[in-house]
């Protein structure tokens, strides 16, 4: 589960209306200040519902968290939630009108290391 504390797709679509209105999910969670405003404490909720959960804040933690999730699934046979805390605002490549004018918001891959798991490698 990727958490940017936003209705991200609707936030992105509201750019066309020059607003960022009623799409924020951020709030000061008095029970979980360590979340830094990142919405609901999904780890506590998942655990309360009988599941296991892992939260990740940094990119290098993602791989170990996914491995830990697999081990927890095997051990407990319950759903395991991996919550990945994302940057609040990222615009994902998207076209508004036609397939010839999809907008790329990030820099593109120029060498293999930029997209190391692409299906056909650069370089």
């Amino acid at each position, binding site marked *: 589960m990727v958490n940017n504390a936003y209705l991200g797709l609707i936030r992105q679509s509201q750019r066309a209306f020059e607003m960022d209105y009623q799409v924020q*999910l951020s709030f000061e969670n008095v029970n979980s200040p360590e979340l830094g405003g990142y919405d609901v404490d999904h780890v506590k909720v998942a655990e309360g519902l009988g599941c296991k959960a892992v939260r*990740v804040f940094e*990119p290098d933690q993602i791989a170990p968290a996914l491995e830990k999730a697999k081990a927890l699934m095997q051990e407990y046979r319950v759903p395991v939630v991996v919550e990945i805390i994302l940057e609040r605002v990222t615009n994902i490549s*998207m*076209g508004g009108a036609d*397939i010839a004018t999809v907008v790329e918001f990030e820099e593109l891959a120029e060498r293999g290391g930029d997209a*190391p*798991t*692409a299906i056909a490698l650069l370089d």
Partner: protein
Amino acid sequence: MPRMTAARAAVEILHREGITQAFGLPGAAINPFYRAMRDQGEISHTLARHVEGASHMAEGYTRAAPGNIGVCIGTSGPAGTDMITGLYSASADSVPILCITGQAPVARLHKEDFQAVDIASIAKPLTKMAMTVLEAAQVPGAFQQAFHLMRSGRPGPVLIDLPMDVQLTEIEFDPETYQPLPVYKPAASRAQIGKALDLLAASERPLIVAGGGIINADAADLLVEFAELTGVPVIPTLMGWGAIPDNHPLMAGMVGLQTSHRYGNAAMLESDFVLGIGNRWANRHTGSLDVYTQGRTFVHVDIEPTQIGRVFAPDYGIVSDARAALELFVEVARERAAGDLPDYGVWAKECQARKSTLQRRTHFDNVPIKPQRVYEEMNKAFDEHTRYVSTIGLSQIAGAQFLHVFHARNWINCGQAGPLGWTLPAALGVATADPSATVVALSGGYDFQFMIEELAVGA
């Protein structure tokens, strides 16, 4: 003749139509059906925490394997209205699920009885049949017809609404000699397939657009065989993703405004001919129809006659089940391969070259994490047999842009309806159908929260 309650007859029919699993929750007006299910003993039941969750579980269960039909059950009134979103999703994506609801006794239907809503009228536009069964003796026929309709033509859901007294009425019914009705699937003729191949052979840069109908027809192997035989590159739609493995040299990328690859859109813009099979030209796939269609010849094959021409007029349309059409495409192409079909090797290599150059960056080290990096790590962590489930939002869009799928039914995605909350219960349905699989549900925070209580069902 054996005598039993109409509810018991319905359960006997479910069993004989191959149902082994149901999702739902009991309530006052559906208790006779639950009693019959408990007594009959052949159908496992998963207790959902929200009735809408049960309907999405049923859909995930259907999508997990060819021939599966998910069943969801609830009481009268709000249980039925809660499942309407599930019927919309299943109907829009051509997925058969059977929704069974309890209802107030027949004599009280007109009296604004407690939790007695006209669910059949509400469900009508979202189902192939929605019926409140008023005569107990009609119950066997209603269920028999339900399975016939769900499996015939364009697959889709059915709702059967059973008043309390109808469920409890005893009827004559012989389960031993029950048999399912024949399933109707239209099939292309040789002349039609020959004409489509003539149009293809007249082109220089053809593409096949492979839709979810190919997966519904369990015909992914035939698609790959036809593509290899003709050398024509394939564009899977979001519903058809996995029909050809991502790493196949003829997989040319996905096309669209959102869930698309840069190389997929570039291939489409370069093409001069498109053969669509089991697809519906969804607007997020085509974008502006002028740009999508200009300078291209289109052939459209679909199982539902009224889908031909719905979005735009193709140059040629064929009404056929995708499997039946692909069997003939393979057969006729093989006859012609001797020299009648052009060599598309150069064009296929151009598509392949775009695939290895037109990429988006995923390797970011930023903190907080950029989403692109998440999918890069998922590609490393999960193998080719992983079964992804997703619904809507930036997570679904980015997932489609960056993840990899290698087998049909390993990208189980809500296409047309996109209801927030679908992912988690649908994933539970997939995991129920295929308990040994690694099922990875991909959600954003809001999708996750919509049906978060269903986590307890999996716990």
